[in-house]
């Protein structure tokens, strides 16, 4: 099932959404956008890293840990983004997403399954009616090195196939060479192509390198209408780190203070253990607060993380660690 009635390429200025009223001048021109992004308060690298390190020392035990583990499970975008993906692999992943631990029905389901666009039909079919959403990467993931037309076709393809959420990549080359308006317009166009699907904007912070860039790219993506900002593709190292998630959480917090619109955050890549996941939840709790402690506003892009969460969960319930063979591989 491929979209046959693709609308003509978007060649218009996006209508001004109400939340952006106070920021209407910002995206009026390349120059004004640049002035705005460069006028954001800087991020001191040493200080941001020290803050993340301090928060990582929070000791989450007993009932708080049990609560955090279950919340983390409900926030997972269970992901497979491999060249070797097959319908069989995706079907297996979907089964795991709906019932992470077949022996324990009290384990909540994950938030979504994240796949390449051509795997969306299989995921939609398997997950139908389960409440687990289908997320698809798009826009020439992971490099984003394609024409806008191709990126939009990629997006529409996934949406038409039934994806609930689109994970797009920004053009890091354009961003790093200062062509912010180009990045902005591309996000706006993809947003348009998403229709009712939620848009997550992948900044690929590992390629943007500095926290100043991460903050600017976060604001750029939010100004362009992204529903979520996401750290990484998972194909570049470093992917999600605590300080970069911290900087992005500060950005969504400040953006809501300014515009009233809430945007979600998704760290992805490199979060493999329950401990890592709980550290991220502590960051959310002490930076953005309660409103983001919800799968609608915070996601974790991961694959192997789920089994570690299950292992910790079982350990908390039984007092013993089970071997990895007691948890399904995908």
């Amino acid at each position: 099932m491929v979209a046959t009635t693709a609308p003509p390429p978007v060649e218009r200025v996006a209508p001004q959404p109400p939340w952006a009223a106070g920021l209407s001048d910002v995206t009026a021109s390349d120059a004004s956008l640049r002035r705005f992004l460069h006028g954001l308060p800087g991020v001191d690298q040493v200080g941001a890293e020290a803050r993340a390190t301090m928060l990582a020392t929070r000791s989450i035990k007993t009932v708080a840990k049990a609560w955090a583990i279950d919340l983390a499970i409900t926030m997972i975008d269970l992901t497979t983004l491999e060249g070797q993906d097959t319908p069989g692999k995706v079907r297996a992943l979907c089964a795991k997403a709906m019932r992470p631990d077949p022996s324990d029905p009290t384990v909540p389901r994950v938030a979504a399954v994240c796949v390449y666009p051509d795997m969306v039909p299989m995921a939609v079919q398997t997950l139908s009616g389960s409440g687990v959403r289908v997320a698809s990467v798009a826009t020439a993931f992971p490099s984003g090195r394609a024409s806008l037309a191709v990126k939009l076709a990629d997006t529409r393809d996934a949406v038409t196939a039934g994806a609930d959420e689109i994970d797009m990549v920004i053009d890091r080359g354009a961003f790093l060479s200062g062509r912010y308006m180009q990045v902005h317009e591309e996000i706006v166009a993809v947003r348009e192509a998403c229709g009712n699907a939620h848009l997550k904007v992948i900044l690929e912070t590992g390629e943007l390198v500095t926290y100043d860039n991460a903050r600017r790219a976060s604001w750029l993506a939010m100004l362009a209408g992204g529903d979520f900002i996401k750290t990484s593709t998972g194909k570049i190292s470093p992917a999600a780190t605590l300080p970069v998630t911290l900087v992005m959480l500060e950005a969504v917090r400040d953006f809501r203070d300014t515009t009233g619109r809430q945007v979600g955050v998704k760290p992805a890549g490199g979060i493999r253990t329950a401990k890592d996941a709980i550290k991220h939840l502590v960051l959310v709790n002490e930076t953005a607060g309660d409103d983001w402690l919800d799968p609608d506003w915070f996601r974790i892009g991961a694959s192997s993380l789920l089994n570690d969460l299950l292992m910790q969960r079982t350990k908390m319930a039984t007092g013993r660690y089970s071997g990895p063979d007691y948890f399904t591989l995908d």
Partner: protein
Amino acid sequence: MAGKKFDYAPAPESRGIVDLQPAYGLFIGGEFVDPLDGRAFKTVSPATEEVLAEISEAGPRDVDRAVVAARRAYERVWSKLPARERGKYLFRIARILQERARELAVLESLDNGKPIRESRDVDIPLVAAWFFHYAGWADKLEYAGVSTASSGPPKPLGVAGQIIPWNFPLLMLAWKIAPALACGNTVVLKPAETTSLTALLFAEICQQADLPPGVVNIVTGAGETGSALVEHPGVDKIAFTGSTEVGKMIARSTAGTGKKVTLELGGKAANIVFDDAPVDQAVEGIVNGIFFNQGHVCCAGSRLLVQESAYDEVLTSLKRRLGTLRLGDPLDKNTDIGAINSPEQLGRIRELSDVGESEGAARWSPPCELPDKGFWFPPTIFTGVSQAHRIAREEIFGPVLSVLTFRTPAEAVEKANNTPYGLSAGVWTDKGSRILWMAGQLRAGVVWANTFNRFDPASPFGGYKESGFGREGGRHGLEAYLDV
């Protein structure tokens, strides 16, 4: 803001690692001895008011015994030892401090009231770092730049009398003992009367390290014990960290005696935030500047100077951040703000805060439940403070921040320097050139740029004006313990 949904369960560090004795003697000549006139006082946990142990009170005769033991150890052993061997003892002590770090951290938090996160992650690692740093100097003193080729290697002073405060008990001990021993002196140290326990555990560590008897002596007690030590004719050097008031008394009583003196006294540091500062990190720096260790920090950033054009943004962020601070059990690993060290100190903080209100400044604290027992004060900020207010001039030594504003860099410098103190200052800006200019203008011993309350054994520390004289730390800190 934080904490309704995600309620961190209690995560207390176990007290089991600490072997508290019901009573402690004085550490003189390498062993614990009873005080000659048998007086003792109790030390309590400021978080619960629980009595932890009985501490001996050293009288003048005990101080004399300690000075005699130190003199004997100096003349017979320590000054005769090759410098390399002195260094070995210090390295050994540093390693034992690291091995027993958890025990020391728990004991420090119990006796002082500071959060275990700080004693574990800041105090004790720095204590070990100080001993490692000065261990390395022991056999390299002639390269420290304090002597000339013709004067030969610098000589130690003899017996050092050292008096330390209660805010960083073991860390201040390390600042005093490590350089003194590295330079070849022996010491008699008096810890503060409310926080003697880690010093007494350090005495055990000296035994464990086989340090020759008498090289380190620890006499516990209050002000009287301190003045007996200061006035003892057998002491060659006095090093004191504490209040400016006591510092002046020491300066008076040592004047004309030939004793070498270093004083590290109070402060009323300006933490200066420009409108181009990295706001989120500046807010962290403000919090760390004044709420670290409940504000019981002589170099605390107790005066916040914010550029008027950034005032609203900084204050909004700061208040939001204060809402996430966790006050409570110092032994809980998630506690940010612990207990006030003593009822006397709590009284002083309350008094000055009341004065702040009556002088017309606006007082604000986040919603914050205080425990029923123990000594507690909520993190507090005063806005609308002017230079003329007492809370902008006097050291409160508690979790109380006075917020002032400025318009231009010159005004910031003027206000920052307009204090009898001059221990530290902080500058927050994205402009490197402004940092350098400010650092040149500020009359403060330490100027932190885009950070606050960072310590390193290689960096000298000390004050201008009523904040004291002499430098501790680094190469400069050696001079205070050498005859140069």
